[in-house]
């Protein structure tokens, strides 16, 4: 595995197919989807690597959390995104514990709540059980294993500002946009 391999073999088509999965996941918070089109170096999982390549490019400053230095060159080659500190990041990538505290990231402005960071989070576990999620995109309610509850509740309280989360584990993703209400099961 080198920095030069493991990107999209057919970028236009795989980007389109990958985005469709990501869009469905963001539109239906808490639902789990398979997404493994890229093969990044360890420790980054295939889903997290795929999301990074779908979203990152030279126009999107990305914060790489500690412990992921091994993928620095891979990102530089395949995405070309500048690596920055958390406060300037449009995207962030790393393990949950390494991304904390969340208040280092941009939550947008009252007039421009879209100017906020999207966090691509690597988790050890992602299953349809645990916290109860409700809100736009969710017909009744869904359950999702989350690494914590309070930070997501605090994030929802900022709405329409706030962070959007793309949770990944191995080959799977689920999204938790700022609009989702999170409660203990």
């Amino acid at each position, binding site marked *: 595995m080198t920095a030069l391999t493991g990107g999209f073999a057919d970028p*236009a088509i795989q*980007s389109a197919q990958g985005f469709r999965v990501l*869009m469905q996941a963001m539109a239906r918070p808490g639902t789990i989807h398979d997404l493994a089109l890229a093969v990044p170096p360890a420790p980054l999982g295939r889903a997290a690597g795929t999301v990074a390549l779908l*979203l990152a490019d030279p126009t*999107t400053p990305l914060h790489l959390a500690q412990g992921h230095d091994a993928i620095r060159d891979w990102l530089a080659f395949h995405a070309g995104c500048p690596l920055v500190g958390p406060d300037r990041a449009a995207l962030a990538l790393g393990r949950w514990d390494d991304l904390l505290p969340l208040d280092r990231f941009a939550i947008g402005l009252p007039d421009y709540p879209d100017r906020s960071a999207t966090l691509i989070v690597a988790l050890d576990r992602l299953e349809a059980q645990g916290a109860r999620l409700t809100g*736009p995109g*969710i*017909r009744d309610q869904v359950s999702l294993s989350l690494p914590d509850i309070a930070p997501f509740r605090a994030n929802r309280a900022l709405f329409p500002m706030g962070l959007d989360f793309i949770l990944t584990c191995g080959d799977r993703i689920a999204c938790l946009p700022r*609009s989702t209400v999170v409660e203990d099961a």
Partner: protein
Amino acid sequence: MSDYNFAYLDEQTKRMIRRAILKALAIPGYQVPFASREMPMPYGWGTGGVQLTAACLVPDDRLKVIDQGADDTTNAVSIRAFFQRTAGVAVTTATTQATVIQTRHRIPETPLTDGQILIYQVPIPEPLRFLEPRETETRRMHALEEYGLMHVKLYEDIARHGQIATSYAYPVKVEGRYVMDPSPIPKFDNPKLSDNPAIQLFGAGREQRIYALPPWTQVVSLDFDDHPFVASKADHACDLCGARDSYLDEVVTDDVGSRMFVCSDTDHCTTRRDAGHTGRLAEVAA
């Protein structure tokens, strides 16, 4: 196809639009700015919708394009052909068969399903524009939820006409937060915006805005306790298929002013007639 970018736009442009779509889905009803690109068609042809469609399509999609409910207008035919050529997708006129539907000014009569994507062409995305032309001000009004002026405008309608005269692009409130322009659909279609299993995306090319409704989002048409919203339509049945519950266009049929009412949704009307339903003038029209 290898001589073209997939779906016309280059990868970096599609990535930019895709990021905007995700933000729009995360903040339902909020207008996300995006850097609209020149498309090989005039703005009036729905370049905002075309760019959204380009960013969403995958090769195995089946695309439907409607213009005021019809699949066969020049605009609809051209956009469909454009994506057949640049993305190699299949096309259809059947609402039930489509995976992606780009629309100008209508929501199909046939209920949409889980997994479908409805993409609206939007001329003026800002519902507060005719009250306040300055964007810095309308952004502030949205930020502060200052929507009183909008209610005043609707109430002036009632004072002047005895009812709310706005019949197209009737403003809605999304999840109790953002007031949104649903594009110039007839207000008859407004109830279909809410609690819809499909993803709804709105694109304004000239105005460079994208906004969205995730599935099952609550969308309420603005109204008053003493003047509740009514999703009205012409009080007729379709003269071709007999439908009483579809939105109708009034068509002049000869030079002495004879008129008929027909479904604006041509797929809906055709499907009903194929199933044996007939209207008042079905024989004449055939």
